[in-house]
């Protein structure tokens, strides 16, 4: 979901995605950047993202990923579900914290 969200803004390559996630989570989600690739592979496998070879900002060849329509739909669905979950959890937690 995080990967998909990153790609909403436009195509990006692995390096960018890894840094973006690290960055946006304010370094809470420290991951080994390599472990991103199996995830990318799986997403591509499911048809949610597509990939192509392109040139990076500093003229390196890099594999770019972009969101497919199916991926976009999936992202919306997951986000909705996630938000519902978060709301539910926080509702459950609130009364406890008040008492």
């Amino acid at each position, binding site marked *: 979901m995080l990967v998909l969200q990153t790609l909403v803004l436009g195509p990006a*390559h692995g390096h960018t995605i890894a840094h973006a996630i690290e960055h946006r989570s304010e370094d809470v989600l420290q991951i080994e950047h*390599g*472990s991103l*690739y*199996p995830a990318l592979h799986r997403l591509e496998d499911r048809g949610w993202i597509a990939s192509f070879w392109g040139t*990076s900002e500093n003229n*390196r060849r890099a*594999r770019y990923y972009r969101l497919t329509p199916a991926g976009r739909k999936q992202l919306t669905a997951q986000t909705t579900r996630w938000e519902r979950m978060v709301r539910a959890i926080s509702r459950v937690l609130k009364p406890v914290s008040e008492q």
Partner: protein
Amino acid sequence: MSWRRFFRRAKWDRERLREIESYVQIEADDNAARGMPYAEAHAAARRKFGNSTLIREEIYSMNTISFLDALGRDVRYSLRALRHHPMFTLVALLTLAIGIGANTAVFSVLNSVLLKPLAYPKPDELVAVKQTAPGAAGLANIAEGLRLSPSMYFTFAEQNRSFQAFGVWAPGTASVTGLAEPEQVRTVYVSDGALQAIGVQPALGRWLSRADQLPGGPQTVLLNYGYWQRRLGGDRSVAGRKITVDGRSREIVGVMPQGFRFVNQDFDLIMPLSFDRSKLSLPGFGFPGIARLKPGVTIAQANADLARMLPIWMSSWPYRGNPRIYETWRITPDLRPLKQEVVGNASEILWVVMGTIGMVMLIACANVANLMLVRAEARQHELAIRAALGAAWRRIVREMLMESVLLGLMGGVAGVALAYGALRLLMAIGPANLPRLTEISLDARALGFTLALSLVSGLLFGLIPALKYAGPRASLALRSAGRTASVSRERHRARNLLVVAQVAMALVLLVSAGLMIRTFQALRTVEPGFTQAEHLQTMRISIPVQLIAEPQRVTRVQNDILDKLAAITGVASVAFASEMPMEGIPPNWDDILIEGQTYTSTEIPPLRLFKYVSPGFFHTSGTRIVAGRDLTWTDVYGLRRNAMISENLARELWGTPSAALGKRFRTGLNALWWEVIGVIQDVRENGVDERAPAIVYWPSMLDNLYGPGPLDAVRSVTFVVRSDRTGSEGFLNQVRQAVWSVNPNLPLASVRTMREIYDRSLARTSFTLVMLGIAGAMALVLGIIGIYGVISYAVSQRRREIGIRLALGAQPGELRRMFVRHGLVLAGIGVAIGLVAATGLMRLMKSLLFGISPLDPVIYAAVPIVLVTAAVLASYLPARRAAVVDPVEALRAD
């Protein structure tokens, strides 16, 4: 997971590698931009990325089907293992290929002949219309029950409620003139309804129609594909052309498609029976019937329907006597599925052969299992170590099974090739009695059978060593496999069991083969009623009405042919008869009334076989005249009512052959009396395994056989020439020229020696004998190899023990005996079990045997002796090696 990716996973991996490289580059660039030295920037980038190999593996495995992957690895491993033991692999493969090949070949025959439906539309609806008549004495002489009469055909066709279509038919021959040399062709005569029942549309033109069946209607003929190609060059505008059949011009109305057979007949022409209703009476039971049942009608219902019509039939047609007389015959409709009719008695043989070949396969499997056990034993140490190092025993079992299944499959492939060759050979030889020969092929079902057989046999012989050596107890082996002096009894149990089973099965097969040999012997000693069959040349010549009308002239021409034939050099004597014994031509039969005996009007005397012969026939064929004399030409031309009868008929009616001479009989109450002038040795007309029927021999030209009527002569006869030049091409040419010098329009058909006819009648037995003989020989050889293998392996395993024994002073002879005894015990147990099994199983073969009991003592004594002798020999050879073991060397080894 997708298959496409599974096969492209290597390419994917390269993609990923490049992608990872690009990540590292970019990260390193960033790092370098922050001022890190180049090398450090790279190292940091790699650190940041993590373990790239691990990640690639993770992605790679996402792309694989792990089961398939493991399978591929096992296959490669097994192939390597098999390649490293070429002798083992070769022997195992050869055994399997022969076993599987034989099974595949026999199964494809069985499948094509017995299992595949007939090549007609909706074959399940087709039935052969037959009937039995348990009340008709003497009918037992006529094989296959009571056929239909033309009047029955009309009654059944018009009044039945069960058939979509129904007709009668009859095979025959005819001569075609005007196309090339006069040619005798095979014909099928059909009534209306017979072609409609079969339902195969003509390839060209039309069927015979109802109008074609009217006597005096259009003269038409339907061609078979082969004849059309052969004689009319496949001319597509052939319909409407005319050919001359039996001297009569007939219009071709159509051509049947390629491969079409009429029930069990290969034929050239189909012609209408064109019965003349106004002249029919009740009898004339000469026609097989064929019908297509209405949907949903069972055979039992159709039988009941026919039974309902029999009284109608009896009261609707004229008869020379009391028509109710047929009630005493108790005619019973007996419909059969058409397939059963086509296949005939081949099914029994095929099942027996399949059973025996299957048993050979089991023996072959046992042998290969034995080989596998040897290998497994040799690998025991390795397996134990692997198990100790943590290999799951499941995995070891899987590996061993993989090896055996692979062997099985490779054997299967080789077997299919063998079977293909065997089938081609079979079709080239073309055993005469095998029905549906042209339909035999290696089809999908046969190949499926082979695949299943290969897999099952692979699992079968692989499972035994796998379970024995790869079990959880494998670690035990480590302790005992090393320097123990002797070998535990338990380790040999599986191999001993296999050998016992092999010997038992070999015994059963040898007994069955032995019984067939005895049957064959018994058949050969039966006096058939003719002598020196190889010196009798036979040929069939028919003189159609259109060619020569007057019976007197027909006999004259036949007589002239005899004279011309007799003039050929090297010919001892010549004659003709309406048919030769065992020739398979549907005979004539009827009842006779004896002078001085009164017959009630409600009984029909026993039926007798009627044959028509020329003077000198018995002399030529070598049939003894027991009493009285032969016919003379004076008898024939003088139309003297003199006839001859067979010895068994003479004894039945008048007690002794000589008492029969001078006695008189007739064929009906209004017929004239005939006098018995000779009594003839009994002849096995229907084959040596059938009883000799009671026969009346008439002259070939006679008048008033059934009361006042015109003179008649038999027009289709088999000429028989006794000469020691039979079979040579020069002789046959002279024979043809002799016949054509009398009349150039007479074709010669079925030119063969009496020997061929005789062998053909034994074909069923000889085919079974050959098949069982092959199976028995294979079983014997495999059994001997089995015993030899076990004993020689035991010897090699116990070298150390032998060495110790020798060192302690054991006599070499004593040691030899020890091993031979081992082999004998195994063979003995096998023989005992086999004998018990054989006594049970041989009952199934009873119908194939002749003149001996299924428990024939000679065979049951001889086969065990053969087997035990072979076993002694097979164990003596390796035992001899035991005696020459050098104790020092044996003890020093490993």
